[in-house]
Structures are given as structure tokens and as C-alpha cells.
């Protein structure tokens, strides 16, 4: 069975500083990894994904994530945080098998609070 851990319920960072939101995963075989963001009273918005290839993936709004197979981690990063980045961030995993089964397993979410 797949699982995702987001060890921090909340991350606080000052605007302009770099931010990191942590994620570790467990899955049989190769993982497909995703980051989503959720604003209040909204659905989830796709940020980026790792499927294969370069361990550093770049996504929307200046976010990037680094895949580390040995540490089974997929941390989300941004060089300079904006107040508007304040939201709830979810890491998700699915098994890297091309079966067409698209079930995503999500972590419990990390609330990012960027102060002015």
C-alpha cells in the first residue's frame, strides 16, 4: 500500500525567504509523485509532478521539488516566498505502473503561512 507523510502541520516563513515543505512517501516499485495546493473553499490545484528523469522538477508559480529516491522524499521548494503562497499544500503518490489506475494517495497537508 502507498502512503505519504507530511511531518509539519504548518510552516511559517517571511516573505522573500526560501521555503521548503517536506514530504516522504512509501510505495512498491517506482513512484509517481505530485504536489497540489488548496486555497480556502477551493479545490486542489496541480503544481508539479515527478514521473522519471531529472530529480529536480519545476512547476507552476516558481515552485520546484526535488526527488530523492534513497531518502524516499519529494520536498517542495521555492526560492522566494510570497504572501499569496499562503495556502494548504498536499503531497500525493501513486504507483508508477502504466495500468491506467489513477488513484492518488494524499498526505494530511501542510499549511504554509507567509508573513509580510
Amino acid at each position, binding site marked *: 500500500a502507498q502512503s505519504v507523510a507530511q511531518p509539519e502541520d504548518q510552516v511559517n516563513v517571511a516573505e522573500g525567504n526560501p521555503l521548503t515543505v517536506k514530504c516522504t512517501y512509501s510505495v512498491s516499485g517506482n513512484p509517481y509523485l505530485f504536489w497540489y495546493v488548496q486555497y480556502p473553499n477551493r479545490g486542489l490545484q496541480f503544481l508539479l*509532478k515527478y514521473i522519471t528523469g531529472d530529480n529536480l522538477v519545476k512547476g507552476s508559480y516558481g515552485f520546484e521539488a526535488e526527488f530523492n529516491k534513497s531518502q524516499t522524499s519529494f520536498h517542495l521548494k521555492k526560492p522566494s516566498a510570497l504572501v499569496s503562497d499562503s495556502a494548504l499544500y498536499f503531497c500525493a503518490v501513486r504507483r508508477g505502473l502504466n495500468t491506467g489506475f489513477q488513484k492518488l494517495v494524499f498526505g494530511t497537508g501542510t499549511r504554509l503561512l507567509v508573513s509580510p
Partner: protein
Amino acid sequence: DAGVTQSPTHLIKTRGQHVTLRCSPISGHKSVSWYQQVLGQGPQFIFQYYEKEERGRGNFPDRFSARQFPNYSSELNVNALLLGDSALYLCASSFHGTDSSYEQYFGPGTRLTVT
């Protein structure tokens, strides 16, 4: 282009009642999945449909059912509602139903409150 749309936005039901939630995927997307998000938790997978066939089912009771129509829209039905069914129900669509590398795009959700 319109994103994933869901209706209704909010719904209040009484225990024991039945509810139907609706979802229209992004144009061209043929795969639809449903998730339940309870307050303070991540979304939990309920169903995936592709080309009108069920491709996967999560750990939910038989009170939950779904179907997909020829235009790829979908309905989620929940019978005999319990207080614990109160949640945000999210629909997600994906371009491909046979390639697991594709990301899913989520709708705004339907907030269901059971009293």
C-alpha cells in the same frame, strides 16, 4: 477553457437521505475520479471511471456508487447518509485513462453537510 465543474456547491441533507453529486470534466478528458476530503485531512480516493467503466474503487461502503455518462460527465451517489459522510467531495479529471503518469485536475468540490 472551463475547468472541472461540480454541482451543487453546497448541500445540506438529513441522516438516512440520499444524495447525488455531479461532475463535468475538462473538455477532452475521459477519466473521472471522485475523492472525499474530511475537514483537516487529505482527500481519500472513492472511485475512478474511464470510458464509462469503473477502473478502481477505494475503501468505501456499498452506500457509495457512481457512474459515468457517454459525454464523460459523472455522478456520485450516496445512500443512507450518515453524519460521517459530511465532507468536501472532489471530482478530478484526467486526459488519459490508460496512462498513470497524467496529473488529475480537480473541481471546486461539493460541500455536503449531513445533520
